[in-house]
């Protein structure tokens, strides 16, 4: 009886080990594939010229594989959309968790979570058909498909994620901390700024990471509204060509295992490095500011 039970335990143990490991194994294989298909480009183009070249003409003869404009495109879109999305997201979270009437919260929060499920192609289409002509006419721009339009659309995607998860974190701060602060004579605002926000910082960081990493890798929206010009933007109304949009636009007709094909995988590798570093920084920040005791979420 004992051995039978132990065998069963062992089987269950192995089962969960396989299930748990499979995700990691598959991801590792994908990473390996990315590296194997991406590295050959550096036989033809030195890595410095690839990363810092300012001309992207992959199909001309002779071709130019300089991805600095694409990196600049991604970076500018992510920074600008974060500047828009983080204050809006955290602001809505504070309002919902601390200030809004419970009845308002009961309606607004599910609505925000519903927006989160909006297909990105719909957001892209909206940006293309409604926002682009509006921007172009209102500000007299050369084109409405530009960095600003793409950033607003990405922010629109990231705000629900940031708001919803931050709200959970803020709402989860134990009542006795808030009551303690109030009892010591702090106002509601002082309590929010000095007690509740620091206590929920780990949760808010997670929310911001999730929201922004969606924006970094997002392809459809930037493919549709960023404008697609491979230049380093000089103004927020310049068209840009972020890395995911470039990969998506060019992968379809690229000859298998050509230089262009390897270059696109190498861009994927750079994009991966981008998200990886971003996640490391965010994890480090969350760790550093982690609250201990009752408020640790």
């Amino acid at each position: 009886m004992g051995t039978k039970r132990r065998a069963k335990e062992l089987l269950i143990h192995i089962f969960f080990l396989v299930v748990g490991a499979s995700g990691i194994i598959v991801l590792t294989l994908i990473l390996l594939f990315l590296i194997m298909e991406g590295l050959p480009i550096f036989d033809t183009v030195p890595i410095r010229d690839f990363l810092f070249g300012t001309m992207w003409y992959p199909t001309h003869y002779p071709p130019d594989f300089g991805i600095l404009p694409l990196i600049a495109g991604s970076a500018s879109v992510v920074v600008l959309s974060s500047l828009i999305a983080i204050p809006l997201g955290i602001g809505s979270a504070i309002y919902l968790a601390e200030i809004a009437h419970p009845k308002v919260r009961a309606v607004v929060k599910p609505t925000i979570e519903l927006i989160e499920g909006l297909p990105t192609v719909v957001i892209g289409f909206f940006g293309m058909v409604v926002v682009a002509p509006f921007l172009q006419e209102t500000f007299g721009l050369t084109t409405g498909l530009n960095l600003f339009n793409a950033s607003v659309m990405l922010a629109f995607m990231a705000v629900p994620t940031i708001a919803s998860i931050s709200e959970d974190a803020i709402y989860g701060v134990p009542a006795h901390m808030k009551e303690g602060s109030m009892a010591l004579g702090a106002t509601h605002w002082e309590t929010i700024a000095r007690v509740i926000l620091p206590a929920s910082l780990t949760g808010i960081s997670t929310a911001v990471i999730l929201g922004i990493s969606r924006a970094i890798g997002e392809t459809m929206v930037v493919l549709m509204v960023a404008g697609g010009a491979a230049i380093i933007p000089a103004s927020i109304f310049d068209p840009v060509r972020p890395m995911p949009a470039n990969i998506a636009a060019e992968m379809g007709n690229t000859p298998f295992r050509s230089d262009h094909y390897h270059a696109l995988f190498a861009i994927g590798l750079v994009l991966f490095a981008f998200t990886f570093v971003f996640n490391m920084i965010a994890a480090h920040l969350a760790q550093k500011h982690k609250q201990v005791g009752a408020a640790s979420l």
Partner: protein
Amino acid sequence: MKNHGRRIFQTLCLAAAALLVFGASALAAERISINGSTTVLPISQILAEAYMDEYPDVNISISGGGSGNGIRALVDGTTDIAQSSRWIRQSEVENAINNGHYPVPFAVALDAIIPVVHPDNPVDNLSLDQLKAIYEGKVRNWKDVGGEDRSIAVISRDSDSGTYAVWNEVALKGARPTPRAQLLASNGAIVQEISGNRNAIGYIGIGYLTENLKAVSLDGVAPSYANAASGDFPVSRTLWFFTDDWPKGETLKFIRYALHPEKGQKLVKETGYVPLY
């Protein structure tokens, strides 16, 4: 892939029906295989569907892997017809002859790529030199080419599309477009952007022209089906079927159907390409 699945399904249905009606003898249905350019693919598809409706005992299988792939398949003897959006290369002809194949060309349709602007833009005509200067980024304001005082938004297709390749070869004569050119992913995206932007200029296949856009004449030649068919409009190309030697049997019948002014060529017009007549 989806099409492939449907083709298999159709074949199975056909085989099942044939077995029921004629017995096993009908299993030896005629087969034609077509391979090559994705630009020509819509034409081959519409022709094949109509042809199989008319001659149900013929089975046509089509795949699109690019012009080069199609011609390679012809040289290897693995396809009956190679569809191509460009003329066959010297090296490909030599390969074919060394392999004992003799490629024969049939022009099946024309494709005109036309410059388009917003309907409110007063510019109706550009010279090829002006167009080149605009796409190279040397001319950046409409007033320099006889229009309003507005900056020009240069719109182009993505660098690996066939349309981009032809446009670059004919309109830019191989020069690089300015990096400020906005590369959009499809004819549809270009139509969308230009119909909403008075500053923009772009180019599309003639079949995509709508009333929300204005087509621009080049060197005084209007971008019409007639001018494309006559070869007067500069940015046009011929789309080809290549067969191995003079076609025989079912392949010949299919090619004759494709070139027939009342049958195949009518369908060509439906796909948005320019028919030969």
